[in-house]
């Protein structure tokens, strides 16, 4: 029997104001089970505000349900099933690695100590070291080991690789995909470095000026969006099909379409599915670019 599950995260008209500044402006979106969702937007778009609301770290207006709970009111219960890495730098400097494991094991019913120990052993970081003695990359590994040892349904990562070098970033995402992700889990990642995550995402949420401008799975993107690179002599014919964005590239012009009439574009140039980063730029800079 197939049970229809409500979405893991369901936001309707989610609004967050800081005085006169509107960080989230009636944002509506949902995140389903077993997905890896990228919440992508430029700096100041409202990514962090959305995550703070989802994690119960801030009060908000509008409707929001995460794992069936109201995050701000039920943060404690929510954190049994959800976990997050807000930033790699948040483990306090005075905390020893082994004490961190002891503490989380002591207070978190879903923490699997053996798993944390195995993950930490792989990093080779001694338990007696304090966080302040570790490099940023090592601290990230410790935090990830602690978080991955929690049997959570939802994992939220807010700019998790900020300030890390390329080796540490790659190690972070490899560990996430290989050692953590399975069909019972859902991951929500915010980043402004789209290239870094686009290969592992199943869904994207584009956010700009506090509003959701695209909510789509990557499969749907391939169906919905088309890009075509045309030479100068074909440009007027291509423009007639109403692209929402154009980009000049190496003497050709790349035009972006949503649900175009493929028959009319046929023969004008080379087709391809836009990458997430191209689509991000196209969506956010608009037709006038």
């Amino acid at each position, binding site marked *: 029997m197939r049970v229809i599950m409500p979405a893991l995260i369901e936001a309707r008209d989610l609004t967050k104001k800081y005085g006169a500044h509107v960080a989230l402006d009636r944002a509506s979106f949902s995140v389903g089970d077993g997905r890896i969702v990228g919440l992508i937007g430029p700096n100041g778009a409202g990514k962090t505000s959305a995550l*703070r609301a989802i*994690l*119960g*770290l*801030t*009060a908000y207006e509008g409707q929001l349900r995460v794992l069936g709970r109201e995050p*701000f009111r039920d*943060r*404690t*219960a*929510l*954190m*049994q099933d959800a*976990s*997050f*890495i*807000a*930033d790699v*730098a*948040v*483990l*306090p*400097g*005075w*905390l*020893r690695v082994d*004490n961190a494991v002891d*503490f*989380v094991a*002591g*207070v*978190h*019913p879903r923490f699997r100590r053996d798993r944390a120990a195995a993950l930490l052993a792989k990093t080779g970081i001694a338990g007696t070291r304090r966080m302040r003695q570790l490099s940023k990359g090592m601290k990230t590994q410790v*935090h990830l080991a602690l*978080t991955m040892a929690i049997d959570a349904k939802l994992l939220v990562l807010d700019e998790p690789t900020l300030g890390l070098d390329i080796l540490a970033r790659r190690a972070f995402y490899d560990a996430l995909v290989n050692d953590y992700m399975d069909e019972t889990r859902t991951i929500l990642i915010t980043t402004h470095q789209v290239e870094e995550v686009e290969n592992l995402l199943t869904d994207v949420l584009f956010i700009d000026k506090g509003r959701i401008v695209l909510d789509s799975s990557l499969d749907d993107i391939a169906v919905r969006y088309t890009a075509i690179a045309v030479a100068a002599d074909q440009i007027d014919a291509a423009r007639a099909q109403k692209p929402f964005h154009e980009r000049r590239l190496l003497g050709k012009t790349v035009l972006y379409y949503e649900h175009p009439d493929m028959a009319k574009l046929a023969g004008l140039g080379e087709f391809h599915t836009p990458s997430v980063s191209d689509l991000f730029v196209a969506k956010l800079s608009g037709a006038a670019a």
Partner: protein
Amino acid sequence: MNTYIWLVRREFWENRAIWVIPLAIGAFMLLCALFGRPDLMVASSAALGRTVGQAFLGAVGATFFAVMSIYAAWYLLDCLYADRKDRSVLFWKSLPISDATTVLSKLATAVIVIPAVYFAAADLTSLLMAFIISVRASSIVGGALWQADLWLQFQVLWLYLILTTAIWYLPVAGYLLVISSWAQRAVTLWSILPPLALILGERWFFGTHVIAHQLGVRLFGFSDVAFNANLASWASAAAADHDAVRTPADIWSFLDFAGFFSSMATWAGAAAGAALIVGAIQLRMRRTEL
């Protein structure tokens, strides 16, 4: 309950001063006992011996208690602010621990755990000092320091002080927690400014000093409510007539247990303290950044 134990343990990891300071005071006092001149403690008679014994226990206890009061206040002012300053609040909040539990664990650390550590340190120090001094000094001085009934009386006094100061200073503790969970920087300055502004404002606009008076009562009026006579007269009464305070039970006549717990000021203060603690919890729920 288990969560509270882990949270208190966590406070010990973060604030090693909780045990390092009393350890340092104790070590210093023991050095004094080892290398000082205990023969300067003149105890020529049994009556004088009681005074010496009381002065000894009183001095050790008062030193520990004074340092503890200052440290506990500093701890309350720092504890929630420190989490936001190093951003570790985002790590603590990723765990299934409510903000109420967190704030109450910090309050419990300040009013129960820290006093208990100092109490134990004061006891241990006075025992070891008495031992060292009685080995080094004349038997009459040594004898003055080994009076079981006096010793028991100080235990009762300490426990009474821990209990009553926790209740009496609850509004102060709550206020410090509010500042700690609210201030963006300079917590010490922020803890002083609002009451100062209120006092000066009241003077300029109304020419009255109700707030200053109430604040004075709260900060300095504790012993008036908690004791029948001040502690100095206990010592002098004992000096004048060594039968005055003889048995451990006698200390009850100086501790105004009934007066303290039936005082309007005690419970009005406790209620204000509870309200401020609720405020600190609400701020902790909302404030994650500096």
